[in-house]
């Protein structure tokens, strides 16, 4: 139960409040913390809504997105790349997109987030109030409690595609994938990144799948079938069988890769 709600006016004030009360949590849009399914207990929260962290700008070759930028602002902004808009639209409800923030999503909504895979695949960097920039994977591993002030997405020759598997427009996402890659001059896939949700409690990087994508022009779905079949994380549950998940994962990843190649071509 939330017992105290602080509403600082500056980043410095917010950080100071956190320092005073280390068990306090930063509070962004509230869609995760206030959700009926939220299992974590929040006692003291520090609201970020007066800190002005909602700008989107392009600075020095990166798109810098303030951490309080809502998903709907991402969809509406001309500065945001289509793949990030696609990831934002994974939240089907516009109401919820109006509330959910990119920073809040990073901090608390790991399980269902389609945004984290996309940001990871785009090699994003997390800007913290400590003035420290952490690569997103490092940030996620660190379980840092520092205040996220922005997400920086490098503008590069990297293409990225996100796709999700679910039954209806608003139903729970069964699986989602973000694939990014570059192409060599001779059309080979270079440095692919594949992130998936639905395999574990948090988004996971699929290095075996990245290996299958690397330095190839064409990709055989059959190889991906075999690779996904070998993954213990994919199992039969009440919604679908392992066979289906294997099949659809292979085709979705290949479809993402094909889309990336089309963009780069």
């Amino acid at each position, binding site marked *: 139960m939330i017992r105290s709600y602080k509403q600082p006016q500056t980043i410095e004030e917010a950080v100071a409040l956190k320092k005073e009360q280390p068990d306090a949590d930063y509070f962004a849009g509230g869609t995760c913390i206030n959700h009926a399914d939220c299992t974590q207990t929040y006692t003291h929260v520090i609201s970020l809504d007066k800190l002005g962290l909602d700008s989107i700008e392009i600075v020095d070759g990166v798109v810098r997105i303030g951490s309080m930028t809502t998903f709907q602002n991402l969809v509406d902004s001309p500065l945001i790349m289509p793949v990030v808009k696609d990831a934002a639209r994974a939240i089907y409800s516009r109401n919820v997109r109006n509330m959910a923030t990119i920073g809040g999503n990073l901090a608390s909504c790991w399980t269902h987030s389609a945004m984290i895979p996309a940001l990871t695949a785009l090699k994003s960097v997390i800007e913290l109030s400590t003035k420290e920039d952490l690569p997103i994977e490092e940030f996620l591993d660190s379980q840092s409690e520092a205040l996220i002030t922005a997400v920086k997405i490098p503008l590069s020759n990297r293409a990225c595609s996100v796709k999700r598997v679910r039954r*209806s427009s608003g139903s729970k996402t069964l699986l989602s994938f973000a694939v990014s890659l570059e192409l060599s001059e001779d059309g080979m896939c270079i440095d692919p990144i594949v992130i998936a949700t639905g395999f574990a409690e948090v988004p996971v990087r699929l290095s075996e799948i990245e290996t299958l994508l690397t330095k190839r022009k064409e990709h055989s779905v059959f190889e991906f079938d075999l690779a996904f079949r070998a993954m213990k994380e994919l199992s039969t549950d009440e919604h679908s069988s392992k066979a289906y998940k294997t099949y659809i994962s292979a085709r979705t990843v290949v479809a993402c890769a094909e889309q990336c190649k089309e963009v780069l071509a």
Partner: protein
Amino acid sequence: MKVNFTLNDVPRTEAVSVNENLQEMLQRIGMISVRDSDNHRGFVGSDTILFDGVPVNAGLMIAAQINGHSITTAEALSTIERPLSPVQSAMIDAGVVQSGYNAPAAALLITELLARKADPSKAEIKEALSSLYNRATGYEQFFTAVELAKKRIIDEKATMKVSDEFRDDLKYVGKAHRKVDGAKLVRGDRAFVEDMVLPGSYILKMLHSPHASAYIMNIDTTEAEALPGVRLVLTYKNVPDNYYTPAGQGFPEPSPWDRRMFSQKVNHVGDRVAAVVADTEAIALTALERIKVEYEVLKPVFTIEEAEAEGSPIVHNSVVSYVVGAPDDLEEKNKNADPRDGRIEIQFPIGADPHANKAASVSGSIGDVEKGFAEADTVIERTYETAQFQCTPCETHIVYTKMDGDRLVIHASTQVPFFVRRIVSKIIGIDENKIRVIKERVGGGYGSKQEVLLEDVCAYATWITKKPVLFHFTREEEYTNSVSRFPMKITVKIGAKKDGTFTAMYMDLKANNGPYGNHCLTVPMNGCSKSLPLYLSDNIAFDVNVFYSNIMPTGAYQGYGAPKANFALHMAIAELSEKLGIDMLEVVEKNRVDEGDTLEILRCLGEGREGTPATIKSCGLAASVSEGAKMIEWGKKEESSDIDIKIGKGMALIQQGSGLPGLDISNADVKMLNDGSVIIHSGGADLGTGLDTISVKMTAEILNMDPERITILSGDTDQTPFDTGAFASSGTFFSGGAVNNAAEELKKKILKTASEMIGEPVEDLNLQFPEKVNGLKGSVTFREIAQATHGGESEGQLIGSASFTCDDASFPYGAHFAQVAVDRRTGEVKVQKYYALQDCGTPINPELAEGQIYGAVMKSIGHTLYEEVKLSPEGKNLTTDLESYGAPLIGDIPEDFKVKLVETTDPYGPFGSKSVSEIAMNGAAPAIANAIHDALGIWIRELPITPEKILRALGKIK
């Protein structure tokens, strides 16, 4: 803490607790339009507000978040004193305000959209409404509402065609007309049960069973009762020992009385164990945690196969008794009953054998099916399965009970107010004259509110404590304790000659009844009675067997048994057609019924009594089929530019009934008031479908007066006469019929009085619009008549009273056509086109009729492709929220979706009307499944049709 904010343009300061949910806080300060449908999950959107001008879900916020911000609720759009906004009036006129629970939210969303985008595209409208779940009318008419709102923002008097019109000879019937309760609902005025709750009322919360089958060995409520603020704890030990069925059916019910308010045995995960009545919800929930229960856990049964297997666990090992018609071996079977299983009281034989898990069974036939199959050139026999689906009304089940002197008052969200009175009276053991049931506006029922699921225990709590008590299902309880579609396994066998003529039809229907037998005979039987009579054959037979199990409870759901059986029947016809090498439509046309045909099979399909054959007096099948086939270009093969996307077309005929002839009865009074205006007292229960509007329009038509001068009061057991309620598609036909008859009675009295006043014979008089009686020489107004009959020298107020009963059946008919695009790579299905052509006789409210069809089709598309209740191996419901369950939103509508009403005139229904809503549930599953076959050549015989099942059928996964 204190929050400073602007509420609907007025600065305000409010003391809130830090943790207070914003939706709850806004309701607390009077913004009752901000409703909660999903316990703060942000799916339904009933809690939509504008936060600094942007739509958000209040339920996903805490009150502290609004400090320094601006909040707009639907209350800002208009008030009782101010006229409706252009968006609100457009929504009502387009027909989207029916149950209306989240109509205020929709109005806010559209208002914000049009402020942001003056001329939004279809995609932009869909995106704006992506936050809204609308089970009643689906989503299609919102596009019309936006179009009309755009016009009205420029010109408040602007109009546009929102639906086809019917019956040129009539002024109101057959024309779109503003729904009489539309303004109240769209504004978010006090209308629903939750709006009637007085401060200080007690809250009732239920302790649910964690086991699918178990005996309660010990239950200790001492600690709960000791908690300050706890007023009452109920368990099986301290409630009346009365058995009942929650099914709101006519007495004697064809459903076994196998429920007790609380029992020592629990029969499904979520079953009632104990109730706590306390000062606050928090205290009640804490008290629930302090109740200690020891269970003897039993092996459950979940499937039909498990239930019918010899030696399987017995769900109800009860002492069974019959009011009439007990079987000879009953005493022998009762010998092994366990007293902890309680009793089952059966009113008359329904083919039950609870000791063998059989809840009901029935068989019937005409002709000689074996001979018919022997004469066939081709015989096909296939088995189809359907899953468990939930009604998912936006307003979850709710009841509020209080005392009025020595009388019990029940504010109910129900389809059957008079049966609530009867059943509660029986359970609690008090006379019906001590109980008043007031049906408030119903935020969606779809059959689930034909059940008495909360009223018994809440009324009892009030009766004991003498205090007002509220019992409101959470969304999770709605999934675990409300009723749902019976899962079924249906085998269909059809024999046919080479030219497609049927020689015999057989349906073997097995239903998984779940833990309690409400509707156990009638839902499965209705599957046969609303599908087989669509086709003519001299030889027809059916067997129905229904089994108790420990799945989630089942019961009534719009369409009743018909959607499942119609799926099976039309799949079998499609498979037969393929085998014969004849186009399905040709086979359908060769065998379908038409006006003048007599349906002999109905002799075997009475609802718990002997049936009677019926002759079809009106039938719009021919026009529905021919127009639908033309619209979808039946027979033309469509190709996609993507070689992996295959397109196919499918269709199905549909039928339903119009109430239950010989069983249902409705009554109404129509009274003239002192100024000549009129008030209707109707026992009918308007579920949001527009029954009250139908009653007003019919009365206006008969009395030749403006509907604005007619008011209706309905569904109040003290204030209105008896009505069996709104189920089995009875509303327009029966309840409307009673009002029609009462208005005709009043008209006779008006003419008689006028005759005396102006001294001319009644034969020379006629009614002139508005409110005038003209003779050959003189005239008199309704006002003058009313004043003359309200004085001491008169014979008294003019009141027309009438009932409506009918022994004749009026069947609505229709044909649904679907075109789907299926991706062979992923198994994903997109419904590209859906055309629903339906004959409901004279559509009294055409725009509302269309809305109900759009809504029903969306529900059945959901059942066909997305929705499914999933249980764990232990019987726990794993899909207790709308997101997990897969409820369809506006993003799931067919790309081209049209409803067409085919006019016929029925001789029995008021103004030639028949029913319209339920029937629309029956077409999507077979039409889509057949379209998938047309696209890919595979038969999916099990609902829902998931991508995984398609990929398996294609051999892509094993």
